[in-house]
């Protein structure tokens, strides 16, 4: 399948990667500012993109036309991007794009969160795994991945049914989260990985009631949720 390239697609990508207002048409040669559309074919492409996917900035008549990506534009971009390219695009994305993904996840929570429709959760979990997972690039810390991991962990923790929880857990495995312990496992209580609802001290014997989660990335291990442990 060929890459979905078009003037509009290229414009949306540039708008995301620039993360700020960009000039609508190709600027003059001596201007430093980048533009979204080359002069040829610009009018047609602009008609398609504005105002649905690109929003014009307020301006006075003698100022250049500047645009920003809209939420619909970010959504359009997500859909037009091939799965194998999606993750790197997401990681280079603007706050708007990241917010969009969180909104989408919240909407899925709203839609599926109360009926325990496991296949639906698995479907959205697989999509999240595709959207969010990407290898670390040059050791750069992907703060965004941690934010996503936090969102997933919160969703998992508050899942209304075991089935939904398992569906979210699949998504968590898909984005590289690793569990701390297994329910029922005998452990020596370690405060840095375990938490309990009753007084326990490091070194006490216990067993895992509910697993925890960590994520490993370029900077090492990052704790998301400690495992819940009870005394033996």
């Amino acid at each position, binding site marked *: 399948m060929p890459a979905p390239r078009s003037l509009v697609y290229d414009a949306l990508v540039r708008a995301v990667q620039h993360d700020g207002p960009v000039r609508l048409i190709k600027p003059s040669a001596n201007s430093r500012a980048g533009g979204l559309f080359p002069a040829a074919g610009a009018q047609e492409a602009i008609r398609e993109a504005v105002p649905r996917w690109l929003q014009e900035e307020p301006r006075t008549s003698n100022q250049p036309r500047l645009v920003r990506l809209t939420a619909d534009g970010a959504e359009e971009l997500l859909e037009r991007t091939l799965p194998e390219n999606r993750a790197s695009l997401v990681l280079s994305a603007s706050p708007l794009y990241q917010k969009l993904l969180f909104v989408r996840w919240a909407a899925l929570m709203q839609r599926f969160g109360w009926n325990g429709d496991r296949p639906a959760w698995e479907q959205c979990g697989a999509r999240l795994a595709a959207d969010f997972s990407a290898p670390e690039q040059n050791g750069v810390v992907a703060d965004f991945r*941690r934010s996503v991991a936090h969102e997933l962990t919160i969703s998992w923790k508050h899942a209304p049914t075991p089935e939904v929880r398992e569906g979210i857990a699949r998504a968590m495995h898909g984005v590289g989260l690793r569990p701390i312990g297994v329910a029922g496992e005998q452990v020596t209580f370690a405060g840095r990985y375990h938490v309990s609802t009753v007084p326990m001290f490091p070194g006490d014997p216990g067993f895992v009631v509910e697993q925890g989660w960590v994520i490993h990335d370029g900077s090492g291990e990052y704790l998301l949720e400690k495992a819940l442990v009870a005394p033996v």
Partner: protein
Amino acid sequence: MLPALCIDLGSAYTKIAFRDTPSSQAKLLGLEELNLDEQHVCVPSVAAWRERDDRWVFGMDAADLVEGNGIRVFRNWKPDLFPAGESGTNPWDLLDEDPQEGLRDAPGSYARARNVARRYLTWLREDLVTRMLPGVDLGDVVLRLCIPEFAMFSPHAADIDRILEAAGWFNSVSFCCSEPMANLTGALTQGHNAVIEPQPGKLFANVPAMFERSHILEMVAAYQEDDDADAAEYATLIIDVGAYTTDFGLISIDLSGHGFFPLSETSSVRLGVHELDRRVAAALPSHLGAAVGALSGREWERFHRVVYTEAREWGLPGGGIVGQTPEQRATIAGTLSKFAGEIATAMNAFLDEHRPPCIQEVILTGGGNNIPEIARRLRQELASRGVATFYLPKADGNRSGARQVEIIAEVVRGASAVGGASVLFDLA
């Protein structure tokens, strides 16, 4: 000159920075096991004691322990080290006559905080920092400990010196330094150090070289070249909204041709994000407020991000949603707004006291400035002062007015520790 280590003993987290030589960069020290933040530098300022076998654990091992069955967990004890209106301790009281002095007291006890501080600082020296700096003899390291500005010249600062000595951090040139001053230095130098040695053995801080990575020097130069400039001073204001205090710092540079001599004013007020949390919990319906009040430290951090920063709903463990109704969202927004207004009022009082003729740059740091409403309110209050640049954790979408520059993550989180290890404090 000896290497320098600075401990920024935060109410929630401790950060530690180290500078090896006079001209090397001060950097935050990290360990893989400190897995609460992306830089692995945040040490929970928590200690726990089990009376039965007199065992102590600290930091990550103690952070989420539950009290009871003879287990005592000491959190947020730092403010108790600097009680208002009390004199310092008789030095004889620190001679280990009762190693458990104050440990059974309720929170708020000065004796309790002092005892915990000594044990925590001992653990830092004998365990954590030793592993952070393998091969470094800590006896040959100068220690600085950041303390609030209001405590700098109080009897409690002298007590801190005694506690450090009792904890083994003995070095005759170690001392406490002012949190806002250290923060300001860290934010503007980003940990860079430089010295000049005009005569053998005579070292001076190369201040312009240290500050060249901030915009401050180019802004000073541009200001000096501006024929219309009508103010003799160039000033940067730093506002650090922390967990328990908000620190203000003002660095002023004389532009009248007498060289680069920074003059600083600093102040701390007892108003921080924990107070905001308390008010929000109190404003919520009682069942939600009780559940919010019981959140762990890590859950609070998420709560801050979701509820304060992103203004979204927050599902509580065991049911209940914060911010589910418009009324609740309005209540939270109103509480946030009132709190931000109080921070702004404190800032205005600080500015009224020191009356800078102008403020060209403002640095907004500390966890509180991650909350958009606080940063927005402070910028709004400063709008009439002609500020050219705001340095802040996260720029917002408002493109009008002053330029916004996002601060590098390491400086946002550890500016005080990095600044406290600066060579400026040795050679000032």
